[in-house]
């Protein structure tokens, strides 16, 4: 109680009053003790009675004296100052049953906590205001009067435009399919599936007829050698499975690998992983509503959009189910694998990083490019500061921010280890898409990039 109270209380008198209470208590207990003990042994009955009464009187007078002393001291103690009026909550502190209903102490704790929260929130908001995290083109504050004139044009876009942008981006990356869904009105949900890359295996080519009927050819970027092979299409009991996989390796050659899987089951399944090709499994942009980005056999990402702004994203493994029991896209469940939970966190950071309120399609394209770098999630070892070996970047790939070829850059700088704990280093730097461990401090990376850029004179 001495905390919030100041000069109103005489602390000295207070301690005297407390000892006065103790004295009063002991004299009262002495009275009852003497009563309990009863009469002491004396020769005559009268003597005993007289002695008893005298003792009793003495005790009672002692009690009286102590009580008067206490009253005097309590007058000296004074009242606590009224500068912090507690009103009704102050009455709570008078509740003697503390262990059953510790209301007052809990109230005090809650109050202190909310004070701290307010303080920290103030600090956080001053820090956050230094970065412009506005994702819309609206201007607040000074131009509030003019706000009705500034239309948030990028927020209200026709769905057809959004579809066009998404399909254009989907065509840019042959190893990534983007499907668009619209489960709740006009806001789109994308399902992105990333296809695995790798040094595909070539098998003999047959049945060119089949190949052309699928319209599978899709080349991209600088393809110096364009090798297309198909495996044989075997038909077993009148049925065949053809799976087309596109791989893009180190940006210099695009190889189409068609694999063949025999089946005993007698089912015709054709899976073509392109946004342009209509596939028999029913993945057709015009029919579906929500959007999913499938990064082949690596991962599936669900991207929820608000017109062309990316709202949130969930990344799951390729073998996990993206649909819930109703058959709708499940946009809330986290992945069951830790590596993809981390990738989800990084993807969320990425979508917050890429911001351009005036040009949302650039933002979506940058985000998709960043996401595509996860195609080598399980393959590439990531960088660690312990063994950084700076070689001259090979294959003529540049490391400026417009470069999109992850493989060349990382192959040149291939070093060390995977992170302990069975998880990978899924963090990708936003400008260069280089994989690195999560714990690598940022300034080391800036240093590293500087060295790299100075080496790379292109």
């Amino acid at each position, binding site marked *: 109680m001495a905390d919030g109270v100041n000069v109103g209380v005489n602390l000295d008198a207070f301690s005297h009053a407390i000892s006065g209470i103790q004295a009063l208590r002991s004299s009262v207990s002495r009275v009852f003790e003497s009563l309990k003990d009863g009469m002491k042994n004396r020769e005559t009955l009268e003597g005993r009675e007289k002695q008893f009464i005298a003792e009793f009187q003495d005790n009672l007078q002692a009690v009286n004296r102590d009580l008067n002393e206490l009253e005097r001291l309590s007058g000296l103690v004074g009242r606590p100052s009224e500068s912090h009026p507690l009103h009704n909550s102050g009455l709570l502190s008078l509740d003697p049953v503390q262990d059953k209903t510790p209301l007052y102490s809990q109230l005090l704790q809650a109050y202190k906590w909310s004070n701290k929260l307010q303080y920290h929130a103030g600090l956080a908001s001053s820090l956050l205001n230094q970065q412009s995290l506005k994702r819309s083109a609206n201007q607040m504050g000074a131009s509030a009067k003019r706000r009705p004139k500034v239309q948030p044009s990028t927020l209200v876009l026709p769905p057809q435009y959004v579809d066009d942008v998404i399909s254009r981006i989907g065509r840019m990356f042959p190893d990534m399919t983007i499907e668009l869904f619209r489960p709740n009105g006009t806001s789109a949900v994308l399902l992105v599936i990333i296809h695995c890359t*790798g040094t595909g295996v070539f098998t003999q080519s047959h049945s060119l007829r089949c190949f052309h009927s699928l319209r599978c050819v899709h080349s991209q970027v600088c393809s110096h050698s364009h090798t297309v092979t198909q*495996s044989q299409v075997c038909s077993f009991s009148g049925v065949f499975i053809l799976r087309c996989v596109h791989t893009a390796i180190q940006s210099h050659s695009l190889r189409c690998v068609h694999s063949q899987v025999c089946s005993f089951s007698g089912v015709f399944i054709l899976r073509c992983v392109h946004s342009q090709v209509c596939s028999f499994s029913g993945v057709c942009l015009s029919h579906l509503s929500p959007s999913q980005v499938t990064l082949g056999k690596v991962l599936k990402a669900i991207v929820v959009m608000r017109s062309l702004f990316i709202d949130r994203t969930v990344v799951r493994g390729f073998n*996990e189910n993206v649909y819930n029991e109703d058959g709708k896209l499940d946009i809330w469940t986290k992945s069951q*694998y830790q590596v993809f939970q981390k990738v989800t966190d990084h993807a969320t950071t990425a979508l917050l990083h890429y911001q351009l309120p005036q040009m949302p399609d650039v933002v979506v394209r940058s985000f998709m490019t960043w996401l595509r770098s996860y195609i*080598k999630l*399980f393959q590439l070892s990531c960088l660690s500061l312990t063994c950084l070996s700076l070689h001259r970047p090979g294959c003529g790939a540049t490391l400026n921010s417009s470069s999109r070829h992850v493989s060349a850059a990382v192959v040149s700088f291939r070093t060390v280890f995977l992170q302990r704990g069975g998880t990978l280093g899924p963090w990708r730097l936003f400008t260069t898409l280089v994989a690195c461990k999560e714990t690598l401090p940022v300034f080391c990376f800036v240093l590293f990039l500087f060295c790299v850029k100075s080496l790379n004179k292109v």
Partner: protein
Amino acid sequence: CNVSCVCCVCHVPVTEGKSVQQTVDIVHKKLEQLGAVKQGSFCVDCETYHATGNVSGQPSKLLYVMHNSETPLSCMALFEGGPCLIADANFDVLMVKLKSHFQNAKGHKVECRGSRYRYCDFLIKVGTVTMSSSARGISVEVEYCPCVVPGDCWNLIKEFMQSFLGSSVPELPSVFAAKPEGLFAPADCVDTMTQYLELFNKLRKLQAPGSNVR
């Protein structure tokens, strides 16, 4: 864990001067020191059937019927190097009915039992392979659940195995390299069972070189 994950089954040789059980305990301890959490037990077993009615002089084809406790309602039937069938648990009853075509080679039943550990996204199963109640060897299966393509994550699995197996880390299982699409076809439970079958056959030949499975 989902059925389609990348698995690697390898044989751990028994340490010099120690018994099978002691070597298994050493591996368990290393896993626990790494931070893995024990999550129950597993069992993989394999029964051998001869195909009767073959032309004499040719070796009879062997059909292996395997069960895996990870997929308790399924049962896999495979010929070595040949096609594989995944059926439900009633297949065992069917095999009894097909007695005239497939004879059970009793005494050739192989079982692998042990405990399961989980470490982040890895699933590790350390088991003792027994044939007619005698322990023949130790198997370790490492499964990396998030990835379905062996070519992508083989390096990761190998490095992880090195951390607790030391030097007895195998090469890339031939079952992945032997596929027509190579390493980039998705793995499934058939690959796992094929690897177990290869391990069982290897262990069968190891300690009983003279016996023939005819």
